[in-house]
């Protein structure tokens, strides 16, 4: 819609353009077009073999509750002094059994670990996992569960201990992953949450594995 006002008798012509309706129409059309493209692109990614799909109605954050209380486990070091004491940040609230850094490190040499009876689940994203993870850890990102579920179910149901970790501190991904394991039918008694997570593991100088 355009309104032109011409001031007669003057060399100066004032043109007032009202574009409001036209702009609103354009905004609506662009929004509708973007929504349509987004719906199609997201549907294409719904294939479990492709990453990047987001569900419209899944509550990805429903179980994570941040806490400002004191941490459950204040250090990852054992009672005896160690070269690299790692102070652990307060972890978010959860009702899974925590496992200390010492116990996680001990599991590395456990024969059961080599027999895939103890498994480590890295709940971080691709980039973080590829930069470094606990040796032998399998990746399972809560937000891309459809993509990882097959690999997870290959090992998890027969495991005696499943140690889940993410970055540590305020990272909520490990708690969300533990909940996913429960929903997949894994017994809660075999699920352990390593609260110190990657930060504590890396800082302790423990062995790491990079890449896939």
């Amino acid at each position, binding site marked *: 819609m*355009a309104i*032109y006002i*011409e001031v007669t008798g003057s*060399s*100066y*012509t004032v*043109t007032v*353009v009202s*574009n409001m309706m*036209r*702009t*609103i*129409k*354009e*905004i609506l*059309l*662009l*929004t509708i*077009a*973007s*929504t349509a*493209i*987004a*719906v199609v*692109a*997201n549907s294409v990614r719904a294939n479990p073999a492709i990453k*990047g*799909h*987001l*569900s*419209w*109605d*899944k*509550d*990805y*954050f*429903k179980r994570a509750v941040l806490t400002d209380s004191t941490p459950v486990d204040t250090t990852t070091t054992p009672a005896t002094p160690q070269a690299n004491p790692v102070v652990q940040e307060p972890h978010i609230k959860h009702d899974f059994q925590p496992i200390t850094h010492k116990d996680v490190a001990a599991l590395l040499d456990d024969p059961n670990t080599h027999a895939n009876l103890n498994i480590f689940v890295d709940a971080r*994203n691709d980039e973080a996992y590829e930069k470094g993870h606990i040796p032998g850890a399998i990746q399972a*990102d809560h*937000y*891309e569960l459809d993509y990882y579920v097959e690999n997870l179910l290959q090992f998890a149901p027969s495991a005696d201990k499943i140690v889940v970790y993410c970055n540590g501190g305020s990272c909520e991904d490990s708690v969300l992953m533990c909940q996913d394991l429960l929903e997949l039918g894994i017994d809660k008694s075999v699920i352990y949450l390593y609260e110190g997570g990657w930060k504590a593991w890396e800082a302790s100088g423990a062995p790491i594995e990079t890449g896939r």
Partner: protein
Amino acid sequence: MIAWFDQKRLSLASVMRVYLGGYFIYAGINKVLDPVGFLKAIHLYNLLPETPPYFLNSTAIILPWLEITCGIALILGWYVRGAASIIAIMLCVFTPAIFLRSLGAMHEQSISFFAVEFDCGCGTGAEIIWIKLCKNLGLFSLAMITALSNSRYFAIEGLLCKRASLSGASSITQSSSPKSSKANPAVDPTA
């Protein structure tokens, strides 16, 4: 003032339009490539309710494509006012949100405001926030100039209007005074 940007053959307003479009295509593609990262980022702002999850999820799914669509529209010069207005509205929402989050981070980490750095979920990675806020103000200015500008150099809208004008379909434009035509050498597509 906007007319100043439209003047001359170069038409600064058109250059701004193409830059703005390119920037939002880049930012949008980065978000589309990592929708989970974007979902986590917008969750951290606590602007949208967690339940029902539709708000957060649909924002994470649609917004990146809205940015890309607007970016393409700006570069092509098609629906320029609408695209620039959407970008201006988005910046009006995001910029204060980033500012508030940076204040929170400043208190939480007990650091200077100028030292606050995080990934704002803008598609450009972790950045020093005060610089990001300045950039956003610049982008908002570009969006406003683009939305108000009549310049349509290198734009589909300009070509279409020129064609319409040549075929005699648009007579209103021709009624403008010679002076205003000179100030806006590109055909006014709003006619």
